[in-house]
């Protein structure tokens, strides 16, 4: 491996970092909100909400992400102008839907792990469902949610590289360009791998921090 070449191309690849990061951050944001809503729908007393949430999870966990991305970018525009999305937005939509399906299950598992006595105590005190979900149940479930949630987030970080197939100029696309221009694959792929490892390492550290912050005080 040519270390000088690695040093030479790394800045070029890093030009895509901001796009990779914004893909990730927007998708994390939307998939967390969506996942929370889906999880609460799944636990709702209203059957149609439960069905919708279950259907959503079944669909988006059952289809390859690559296919979802193709669908949003290539197939949706056939339904008309309003459904035509630029590459970046299409990628965020696809990643968010896909990740929301997984995050809803992570969040739901956290909620149902909270002792039923907690719900009863809150109800017996006259608290509304909205209040005790927010103040009593969710804070306790966070502790359980953090590990699977960060797992999903790490996955999401890596899967942003798929946006390359719908021409989003994130890091993977830039690395591919170098490969086809320079006819060298080892160095660009090595640099790309290191950058992704660094990014996911940050998430692993974040997980440790979150777990510490939400541990039960004994």
């Amino acid at each position: 491996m040519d270390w000088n070449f690695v040093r030479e191309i790394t800045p070029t690849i890093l030009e895509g970092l901001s796009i990779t990061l914004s893909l990730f951050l927007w998708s994390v944001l939307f998939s967390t909100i969506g996942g929370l809503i889906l999880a609460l729908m799944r636990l709702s007393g209203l059957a149609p909400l439960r069905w919708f949430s279950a259907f959503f999870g079944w669909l988006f966990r059952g289809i390859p992400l690559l296919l979802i991305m193709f669908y949003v970018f290539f197939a949706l525009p056939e339904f008309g102008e309003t459904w035509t999305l630029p590459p970046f937005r299409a990628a965020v939509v696809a990643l968010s839907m896909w990740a929301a399906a997984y995050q809803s299950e992570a969040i739901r598992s956290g909620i149902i792990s909270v002792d039923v006595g907690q719900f009863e105590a809150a109800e017996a005190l006259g608290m509304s469902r909205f209040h005790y979900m927010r103040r009593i149940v969710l804070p306790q479930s966070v502790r359980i949610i953090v590990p699977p949630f960060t797992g999903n987030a790490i996955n999401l970080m890596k899967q942003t590289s798929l946006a390359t197939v719908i021409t989003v100029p994130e890091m993977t696309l830039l690395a591919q360009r170098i490969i086809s221009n320079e006819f060298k694959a080892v160095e660009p792929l090595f640099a790309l791998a290191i950058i992704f490892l660094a990014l996911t390492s940050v998430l692993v550290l974040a997980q440790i921090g979150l777990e510490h912050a939400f541990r039960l005080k004994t």
Partner: protein
Amino acid sequence: MNPIVKVSGLEKSFGDLQILNGIDIEVASGEVVAIIGPSGSGKTTVLRCLNLLERPDGGRIEVNGRVVCEEQPNGKVKFASKREIREIREELGMVFQRFNLFPHMTALQNIVEAPKAVKGVSRTDAEAKARELLDSVGLSHRADHYPLQMSGGQQQRVAIARSLAMDPAVMLFDEVTSAVDPELAGEILLVMKRLADEGMTMIVVTHEMGFAADVADRVLFMDHGAVVEQGPAQQVLGQPQHARTKAFLRAVLDRTPMDAVSEPPTDEAGSQPGEAGSQPVDATSPDATDTKVERLETELAQLRGELDVTRRQLEQKRDSRPWG
């Protein structure tokens, strides 16, 4: 008598299993009613129906003049609206067997939460009241402790304070000493006794026969989802009429002598020593030596309990790690 709690014809089944078989109970304001009975008799379910943690299948419940649920002529039960249910629950403080304190909040936060959220009490007022209540259950020094940092007896006393913070008209106690070490039960019972003395209306589901004899105005014996026998405590516990009541009391008393309960709290340095002390209500009346031996054994158990708590605290300190 103008009853504050009125239950009539209460029915509840879980699947094919009929738990409550037409229960009638009336509780007057200021009255302390103990419900005793074998496990599975439905006594806890009665309590949980009052604040609709369980939804009855038949009958009628009225609390403080409000209808909680009522069977319609067509046999269906009509429940109070969501909003009314919340208001009724404010009137009914409930203490659970397993405390159910919120583990992510300190003792003080546990008590303050509901008054702030439900009654809109200001933070300052809620905290002042919470500190008063903590003091009254002998735990002012534990205000900033988290539930898992406290013994079972202390947690349960915080739970009682949490319920009292809502100014309930009636307090429901669901086997509140069953999940704590026996030597810590006394500190909970003492708090309850004091509450009864202050005139609180209480419905107490319990296995503590000594407490029932000592504090309750009336004892109900339940079996197979029905009230088999009821009357003044001394009468039901001392001269039970019904064969099933007799059998139940015999089974319970053979295991736990009645005067082994109602000991003063261990960590409330002699605030009211002996106030709830052993009173001779024991129907089986063991002879003097036995009583002395038992008393000494109770004391020993209590000391062991204190030792245990201290040891556990030390261990917790030693073991507390970031991922703990």
